[in-house]
């Protein structure tokens, strides 16, 4: 009898461990997937509070001035995308959310937010519009935000700047010997170029501008930027001949899934499938994404965040967007359980914060958890998916 009791208790413990934590942490997955307003609004309100706080780079504690500046920039950039996506999900809030988005754009245009890019290039990105200095770290992502905003306000106050940024990025890609723009001098990251592609494609759809040359070149180039065995996106390449400098990574691939969804649904889906096939891991109902492909290990970096047992916070979090975008409910639910466990959402005063996220974490989650299906960005313009080449022949 004593042994039977022990066995039964162990069995109950095993089942409880498998069910209770993941079920509790993942209980909001359905609500998030169904775009329930209270949750999305709570994240929006938190982003607005951070914006009102007029953050400086010193708030981010990365230990690096450059990365502090990137995170300051990223906080407003992701919040802007979140507001836009919320406006699309809930049209009754369009005006309010577009205004919030515009407030984020104003933040992005301030000298203190541009400072990180200015320090790296030795010149201001907005002053360098039209030059041969790409400034992809700033202009690529600003361009995407402006393209998204232009979808709402075709003749808005940022239209002229948007045109200049798009022309600059178009030329940056054309001028590059490898068809990719430099994020910082001498540094080329394919994932940062996906934001440029998203920006140009959306600009083309919204305004009728012609970016086919660079978009088609990107579509032809993309297979060579993907790992042949996994289909994951190479993290960094050399600016002269495009050889691999840093191999495929989960964080970069997952973020590229999100940015490419603004440009080409099939390219985005193909990368998401590669992530799901090769990088998805689960334990006791919690899902996560590896940072390095199976068989490879690494310590990660500022882009991946902490890497534990091979999985990274960034790859896992960014994949929330990919799974939402491509209707991958099962993966989303598993990843959300993990994101909730490690992010620790806190709800107070109608705002949702992530206790382990900080300003950037809050903004990222706002954007990733409101990401729209790729078809959203193709709709309402009457124009077909951009890019004529296939998504890539790398195995998945």
């Amino acid at each position, binding site marked *: *009898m*004593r042994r039977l*009791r022990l066995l*039964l*208790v*162990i069995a*109950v*413990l095993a089942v*409880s*461990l498998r*069910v*209770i*934590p993941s079920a*509790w*942490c993942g209980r909001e997955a359905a609500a998030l997937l169904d775009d329930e307003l209270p949750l999305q609004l709570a994240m929006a309100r938190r982003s607005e509070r951070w914006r009102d706080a007029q953050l400086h780079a010193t*708030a*981010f*504690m*990365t*230990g*690096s001035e450059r990365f502090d500046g990137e*995170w300051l920039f990223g906080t407003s950039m992701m919040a802007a995308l979140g507001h836009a996506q919320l406006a699309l999900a809930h049209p009754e809030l369009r005006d309010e959310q577009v205004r919030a988005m515009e407030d984020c754009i104003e933040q992005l245009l301030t000298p203190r937010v541009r400072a990180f890019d200015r320090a790296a290039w030795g010149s201001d990105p907005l002053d360098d519009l039209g030059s041969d200095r790409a400034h992809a770290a700033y202009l690529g992502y600003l361009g995407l935000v402006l393209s998204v905003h232009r979808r709402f306000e075709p003749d808005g106050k940022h239209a002229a700047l948007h045109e200049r940024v798009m022309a600059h990025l178009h030329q940056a890609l054309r001028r590059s010997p490898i068809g990719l723009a430099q994020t910082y001098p001498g540094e080329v990251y394919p994932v940062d170029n996906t934001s440029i592609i998203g920006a140009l494609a959306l600009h083309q759809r919204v305004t009728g501008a012609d970016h086919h040359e660079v978009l088609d070149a990107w579509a032809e180039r993309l297979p060579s930027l993907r790992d042949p065995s996994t289909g994951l996106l190479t993290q960094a390449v050399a600016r002269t001949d495009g050889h691999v400098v840093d191999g495929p990574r989960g964080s970069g691939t997952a973020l590229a899934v999100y940015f490419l969804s603004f440009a080409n649904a099939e390219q985005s889906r193909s990368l998401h499938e590669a992530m799901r096939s090769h990088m998805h891991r689960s334990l006791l109902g919690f899902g996560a994404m590896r940072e390095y492909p199976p068989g490879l290990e690494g310590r990660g970096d500022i882009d991946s*965040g*902490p890497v534990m047992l091979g999985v990274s*916070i960034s790859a896992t979090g960014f994949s929330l967007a990919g799974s939402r975008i491509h209707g991958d409910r099962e993966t989303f639910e598993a990843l959300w359980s993990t994101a909730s*466990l*490690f992010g*620790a959402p*806190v709800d*107070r005063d109608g705002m949702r*914060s*992530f*206790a*382990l*996220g*900080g*300003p*950037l*974490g809050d903004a990222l989650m706002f954007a990733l958890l409101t990401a729209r299906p790729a078809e959203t960005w193709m709709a309402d313009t009457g124009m077909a998916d951009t890019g004529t080449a296939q998504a890539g022949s790398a195995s998945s």
Partner: protein
Amino acid sequence: MSRRRWMWLVGLVLLGGLVHALAAGAMVDHGIAGALLAGGGGLGTVLAAAGFLLLRLVGFVALAGVPALVLWWSWPLHGGRTRSGDTCTPTVSARGQRPFDSST
């Protein structure tokens, strides 16, 4: 399972939830949120964030253990019923006298 054990269990669960909620709020209020992600801000900040995460993880494991613990406490190994036909027969009465003997 004694009433005291139930109260302890419920109390610990509630206390754990309260401590967690307060710690999470403190993380947000004191700008520690994001420290673990960033990895900077000083050792104290990172340790505080790591400590909160550990508290959270341990808390969930403990919560998952509650059903097993309830089962362990509730499963009687020595049953309260006596053998069939037995009656409780005192050998000494309350006044120190032998109980009534029908044979005398």
